[in-house]
């Protein structure tokens, strides 16, 4: 993996960790790790959707497989993004997990293209009623399911927080109620360990600095 970062040769690596600001941002945090998370998740999500898509006959009136897949995806993504945002900061392993499971799996699992072409083909076959109903019902239910996912995440996070507070005899919601979950997504990869074989002690400050330089629109 160190070959992905040509500017960090073993001899210069440790010293540059001591003075991160002297290094160009690109070499301090390679964009390849987030992209790999999206790739892996996208491949997995696409495979699952493709598996389900074989259940749907080509001549079906209402494309129920696409419909159910998209609505499930909307609910799960709403839940996932809200839960992650409620339980900790969007950085490090948590961010990579969001990119893998949200942008990758759920993005790949759901599809807008197939949905639209299904509507278009019904228009072209002059099944206007079905086309309009399928299009409108899909997007409206998508919004509703995404909202239900967000609300469910709120309820679950509140429940966990209150349970945590009771267990620790705290009078109110602790500010860091998500802390017990913070370490879990690290199993998906600490960027520092994946990218280089550099010594671990510098990795904490390294991550904080490098995250500031990551793509602003990365989701």
């Amino acid at each position: 993996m160190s070959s992905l970062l040509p500017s960090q040769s073993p001899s210069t690596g440790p010293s540059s960790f001591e003075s991160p600001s002297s290094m160009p941002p690109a070499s301090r945090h390679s964009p390849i790790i987030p992209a790999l998370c999206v790739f892996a998740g996208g491949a997995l999500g696409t495979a699952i959707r493709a598996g389900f898509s074989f259940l749907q006959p080509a001549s079906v009136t209402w494309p129920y497989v696409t419909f159910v897949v998209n609505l499930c995806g909307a609910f799960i993504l709403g839940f996932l993004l809200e839960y992650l945002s409620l339980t900790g900061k969007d950085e490090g392993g948590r961010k990579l997990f969001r990119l893998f499971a949200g942008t990758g799996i759920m993005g790949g699992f759901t599809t807008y293209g197939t949905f639209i072409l299904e509507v278009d083909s019904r228009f072209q076959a002059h099944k206007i009623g079905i086309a309009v109903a399928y299009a409108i019902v899909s997007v409206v239910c998508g919004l509703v399911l995404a909202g239900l996912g967000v609300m469910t995440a709120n309820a679950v996070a509140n429940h966990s927080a209150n349970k945590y507070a009771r267990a620790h005899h705290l009078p109110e919601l602790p500010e860091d109620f998500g802390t017990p979950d913070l370490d879990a997504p690290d199993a998906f990869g600490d960027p520092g360990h994946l990218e280089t074989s550099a010594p671990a002690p510098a990795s904490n400050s390294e991550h904080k600095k490098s995250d500031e330089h990551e793509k602003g629109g990365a989701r």
Partner: protein
Amino acid sequence: MNSTIAFLLLSLCGGLGAVCRFEVDSVVNKHNRLKFPLGTIVVNVTACFLLGLLTGIVATHVSPAATAAAVKLILGTGFLGGYSTFSTASVEGFRQLQMGHYGYALLHTGGMLVLSLIAGLIGVTIV
């Protein structure tokens, strides 16, 4: 084509499509001056145009039928399926509603739907 290989290619293409979506979304939203997210709209509208184009090309220019089906599966279900997304579109639309931006929610959800339908139709018919 061996169906296992086709499935594998389909999945890998889906992964590539997801990465393309991630990159396009990042670039568009970095330059976006509007008050609502534009990246997913650009991604989905282009996906629908390309899927329409692919459907049209495969139906008229690719034979035998087995090859046409495999191409449609790998590039359509795989790459363009992984590239486009319904879930992010729904969550972004809900966020606009949640913030009380009903006009933006309608513009985002309805605009994406209408533009995508038109883009898909253009793709299918120009081949």
